[in-house]
């Protein structure tokens, strides 16, 4: 349902021009969880940002449910695709309560049953109703990320774009969020495009991974093949060795 075809993204002009993404081709099927791994500057976040309409496309195309996406993202797109960011400290408005934050997408899309929907989604992400009136600074990092996930679910999208959603969290809290994401995916038949620098985290949540280096997709590999060390590319093999050494 998502297809990236020969996508290129460039930033800057003239001699300072950087190719953030070159000739990127990948598809994500219905209900599939696909991970993107690699080191900083590899282009993995740029893929998500381009799909969300936050980075300019230079060449190639992105198709969503068979239709080519243009320059602007409309409301229908927001109801289909939502994004969760790395830093829940930065992505929630500090002067907005949890309920205010969750109600906003409903207001924009003129949906009713606000209280009932908020109660249902809070329950879904494992937060009690009493959290409705709290501000972000009254929540722990894990609770904030639960709110960010709840916000992404408000419009009942089919696709979540997850950009390092557990990298700012302690390992015990990371486990809770990864379990939550796995359960939500099963219950709601969600598709994930999941970006992380942590191979073990991506292999845990995803069926298939793309390894990125220097703005290029150098290999796609199933989680099973990755675990078994059946990678063909030396760069991926290096990442796998490093991840295994610290387990």
């Amino acid at each position, binding site marked *: 349902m998502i297809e990236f075809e020969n996508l290129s993204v460039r930033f800057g002009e003239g001699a300072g021009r950087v190719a953030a993404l070159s000739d990127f081709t990948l598809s994500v099927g219905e209900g599939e969880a696909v991970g993107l791994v690699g080191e900083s500057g590899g282009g993995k976040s740029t893929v998500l940002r381009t799909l969300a309409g936050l980075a300019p496309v230079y060449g190639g195309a992105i198709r969503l449910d068979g239709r080519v996406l243009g320059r602007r993202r409309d409301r229908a797109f927001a109801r289909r695709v939502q994004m969760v960011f790395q830093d829940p400290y930065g992505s929630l408005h500090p002067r907005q309560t949890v309920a205010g934050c969750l109600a906003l997408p409903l207001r924009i899309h003129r949906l009713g049953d606000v209280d009932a929907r908020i109660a249902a989604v809070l329950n879904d992400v494992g937060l009690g109703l009493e959290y409705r009136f709290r501000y972000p600074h009254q929540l722990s990092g894990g609770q904030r990320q639960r709110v960010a996930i709840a916000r992404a679910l408000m419009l009942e999208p089919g696709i979540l774009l997850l950009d390092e959603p557990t990298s700012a969290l302690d*390992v015990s809290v990371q*486990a809770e969020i990864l379990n939550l994401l*796995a359960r939500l995916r099963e219950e709601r038949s969600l598709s994930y495009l999941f970006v992380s620098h942590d191979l073990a985290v991506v292999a*845990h949540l995803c069926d298939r991974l793309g390894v990125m280096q220097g703005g290029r997709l150098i290999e796609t590999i199933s989680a099973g093949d990755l*675990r078994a060390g059946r990678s063909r590319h030396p760069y991926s093999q290096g990442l796998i060795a490093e991840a*295994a*050494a610290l387990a």
Partner: protein
Amino acid sequence: MSAAELLRIEDLRVSFAGDAGRSEAVRGVGFAMGREKLGIVGESGSGKSLTARSVLRLLPPGAVMSARTLTFDGTDLMALSARAMRRVRGQRIGLIPQDPKFALNPVMTIGRQIAEAVRLIGTSRAVAKERTLDLLRDVGIEDARRVARAYPHELSGGMAQRAMIAMMIAPDPALLIADEPTSALDVSVRRQVLDILDGLIEDRGMGLVFISHDLGLVGAFCDRVLVMYSGRIVERCEARALAHARHPYTQGLLAARPRLKVPVAVLPVLERDPAWTDDGEPAP
């Protein structure tokens, strides 16, 4: 652990003023170390950074520290004047921060910053310049002259962290404190920086306090490990024995990590026992 004791801490406490009186963030921590690599692990808020920074008496505003013993290389650090303490910081004990981009001076070249550290021990400008280039080569930077002329923003994260290490080892300190030194770095660069750090500590016979939230990293890199929870040390062990940790908190942290070679459907979640708060070694 080498025979000579480098650092001894007994009953270290750090507290902050809060709404309901003072609250203790470090609650009676004690350990002794020699010229070895000692890891301190724990989650955010466990008190690991405060413990390490207490050695330098560098704490956030409002923090109050006390210790029955805080001895470094035979000197009672608690008894030193602010002036004498400044001579310990940087010269006898170096601090490597998580993100060198915030710690380096953005408007001064790398070479001048390192030379400044070299001149602390009193050498001429010309000698300091040569010594700076040697130090940059010691941390594995081949084109030392180019890097010495560069400003911090012109360097990659790994290169900047190496420059930071070069600056910290310039006065030949006896102890390095590294606070999450590789958390901001990519994995391939992390390996290089750790190898450089390891080589320096070996060659110069320094001690290292290595603070990290990453149990796998500490287990692979350090000699001994202290595990902190809620301001206390709840477990101490040899780093290679970390996988067989006995405290349920350490076991819980190890189990909660997704592991590449050991897939599980649902990750075990840490169930915190209120009793852990009183574990560890309270002051006698």
